[in-house]
Each structure stands twice: as C-alpha cells, then as structure tokens.
C-alpha cells in the first residue's frame, strides 16, 4: 500500500513554473526535497493521482490554488519553541534593545504568529512592549488572518506553558490568554503592537529598519542561493548593531554577509550586525 506516487524533478519544475506564471508565487529557489514531499502530500490529500490532474486543478480553480498554497507552505509553529533561545533573548538581547526609544522587530515568515506572541510576552515582562513595534510578515495571507485573530487551540497550551517556564517565565502563563471552549485567545494588549503584512522573502525588498530580526526555521525551506539573498536582505534591514536570530539548525556560514555579523550565541543562533 504505497502511499507515495513519485514526482520527477522535471514534473516538479513544471508545477513551480505554472504557479509562478499564473499566480506570481516563486518557489523556484525552495529546497527541493521538502517541496517535493509537500506537493505529493497535497496531491494525496486532494485525491489527485497524476501531475496532469494537479496542473489542471491549478490552472482552472483559484480556490484550489488557495488551498494548495496553504498546504504547500509549512505553517507549523509553536509558542516559546526552543526555550533556551528565549532565555538568551531575555538575558543577552533585550537589555541592549532597552536603550532604543522605539524598538522595531521583524518576524519574517511568522506563520500563524505564535513566535510573535511569545516575543510580545517577553517584551511585556521586560517592560518594553509599549515602545516596541513587532512587524510580522508571511507569504501566505491565510496565516496572517489567523495571526490577526490570535486564536490558538487549547490543547497546545500545556506544551506552550512548559516551554514558557523552561524559558524562565515567572508569571502564570494563563494570564496571557483567555480560554473559550477548546481555544484560547491571546489577550489584546499583547497583540496591539503587532503589525501584520504580506511579504515574500523570495522577491520582496527592505521595507523598514529593525533592531532585531527573527527568522527561525524559514531558511531551511530555501536553497543556498535564496538563503544568500535573504541574509543580504536581513543585513540591509538591520540597523548597525542590530540582532539577527535564525533557527538552531540553520547556518549563516555559507552566506556572503557572514563576515558582517558577530556571534552572540552560537547554540541559539543569535548574531549581531557589525557597525
């Protein structure tokens, strides 16, 4: 009972080309192994047996494409994922950010916003939230809409509470949200300073200057060429001495701009732009 039809590299390239031509989303520099797996997964879920059927649906059915885009992009995220990362932020980064009159932070590839909410809570506990602006961007409008609502399934909250406590959180985590049936909603005061906008790291440009950019577990979906572009974009979007945080298994070492950064914490991949 093999669940997996095979997708050749040529077929995948044709699908990428079609999506780019018709809808403007460019996946050509995405890491192929993961993208291929997700296209196959979409085909299974939609009951499509051949790439011909997939192309037919993509060409003729905009609502199918919207669903496909949502399923193709990885929208998995957590609050306080990698608790030690948040501990490092609290101890090594926030005291420096506190010296700015206005703190601007960019969450690039924010998915449904859980990391942005975590950052807002961290800033609030440091007394910095009121003068912070959190710009949260994603490729996918459906993600942004969900982030705007601030609603999270209740069943996740136990794991998030554990993460929060491991991150050194001192308050009752439940004071940050209101539970309603099987969901929770993040309290409004932790969402008012969040600005949500669509931004595509593969093609879009610098849009502001930031003291901290968080882009964790997004670069793994890109090939080296696109990673290099995005690192350059981050460099150009940071103020001098601004911070960059990437995923704990991601690497800046192959990027042209690597020499423009110093390492603040290698295990949690926090870097700082040089002057």
């Amino acid at each position, binding site marked *: 009972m*093999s669940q*997996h039809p095979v997708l050749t590299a040529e077929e995948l390239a044709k699908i990428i080309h079609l999506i780019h031509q018709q809808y403007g989303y460019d996946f050509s520099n995405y890491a192929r192994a*993961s993208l291929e*797996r997700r296209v196959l997964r979409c085909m299974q879920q939609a009951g499509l047996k051949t790439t011909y059927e997939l192309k037919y649906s993509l060409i003729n059915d905009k609502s199918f494409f919207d669903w496909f885009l949502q399923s193709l992009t990885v929208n*998995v995220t957590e609050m306080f994922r990698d608790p030690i990362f948040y501990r490092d932020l609290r101890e090594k980064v926030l005291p420096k950010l506190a010296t700015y009159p206005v703190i601007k932070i960019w969450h690039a590839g924010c998915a449904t916003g859980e990391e942005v909410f975590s950052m807002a809570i961290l800033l609030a506990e440091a007394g910095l939230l009121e003068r912070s602006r959190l710009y949260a961007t994603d490729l996918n409008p459906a993600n942004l809409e969900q982030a705007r609502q601030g609603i999270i399934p209740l069943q996740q909250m136990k794991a998030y509470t554990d993460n929060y406590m491991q991150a050194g959180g001192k308050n009752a985590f439940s004071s940050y949200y209101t539970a309603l049936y099987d969901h929770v909603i993040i309290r409004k005061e932790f969402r008012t300073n969040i600005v949500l906008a669509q931004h595509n790291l593969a093609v879009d440009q610098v849009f502001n200057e930031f003291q901290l950019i968080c882009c964790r*577990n997004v670069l*793994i979906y890109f090939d080296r060429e696109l990673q290099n572009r995005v690192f350059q974009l981050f460099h150009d979007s940071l103020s001098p001495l601004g911070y960059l945080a990437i995923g704990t298994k991601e690497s800046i070492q192959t990027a042209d701009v690597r020499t423009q950064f110093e390492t603040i914490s290698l295990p949690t991949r926090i870097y700082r732009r040089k002057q």
Partner: protein
Amino acid sequence: MKATHDIGIVVIGGSAGSIPVITDVLQSLPKPFSGTVILVVHRSKNTPSELYKLFLNIDESLLVCEPNDKDPVRSGYVYLAPQNYHLLIESDETFSLDYSEPVHYSRPSIDVTFESVARVYTNRVTAILLSGANRDGADGLERILLTGGAGIIQEPATADYPAMPQAAAEQNPGVRILTPDQIKTYLQTILQPIEK
C-alpha cells in the same frame, strides 16, 4: 573528503527501546569506516536532548554529529537526525531539514528520512528498523525496497517494543529479520574499515 557516490549508506530508525541496540551497533563499527550512517531516533521535542553526546562517548574516534541544514553528507560519519526536525537529503547529497507536521506523531519521522534516502541513494541504501512502539518506518521501508535497497528489521522477539519492526515486517514481506548480533555482523560487510 571522499564523495559518497561509491559507498554504502546505512539508515537506522529506532524508537522506544532502540538506544541500547544503537549503542551496541555503533560500538561494533570499524573506526574509521567507509560509508555513512544516518540515525533517526524518536525523542521528546522541547527538552534539550544530549543524545548525540551519548553516542559520541562510545568511542572518541567515532565521528557523530547532528547535521545542520545544507551540510554535505560525508563518508565516515554517523549523523543523528536533530530533535524536532524531519531530516531529508537533497539530490546534491546535502542534508535538508523540515519542520512540517509530525508523521506518526513523530518529528523526526523515520518514514520521512527513509523515503528521502531511497530517492537519492536508491540501491545503495541499507535501512534498518529497530525496536519501537508505533508504526513509523513501515512505509519508508517499502520505498527503500522498491528502489532496490536492502531492508532489515530487528527480530521482534529481541526488541523491547516489538510493534514497530512487526508492523514493517507485515507490510514488507521482502525485509530481512535479524537479531542485533546479526545486524552488527551485517554492517561490518557494508561499512568497511579504512587503513589509518
């Protein structure tokens, strides 16, 4: 560094009850060896895990690491799939990480890595599925066998948790069923020692 196009790729999947077997297998490997070993072991996701250090301590000449995204697959190394990511291989023989939904409640998932390795290395792969309590790995072993690789499961009677190898054996009549000692002997034929 030797390219991996002419050497064996061994990918080992394990869950509950597999760590003593993996430790034993790694201990028995020639050091240094020619070939690559990739381990996918289920573990809890947000508690910092030091599993690779445990394997590292087996023998200081054993090269064990958790790959970063885009690291090349090298001969002579034992790679451990990082906690809380799926581990994939690109066609240019570099590692690629993926943080998408768990498969069989697992991330890393054995199926995901087996399928990816099968695609890139086809008939040069030996996949081994050890003790575990769920059914991760059964679909992956099917891909391995379909692309001409060798599939092995730990003899369920020797496994602390036989469900996982059992499920794979039921789905894949073509797998070999070996005890841990037989697995060690088998691997010594694939991972050849290198003269220092």
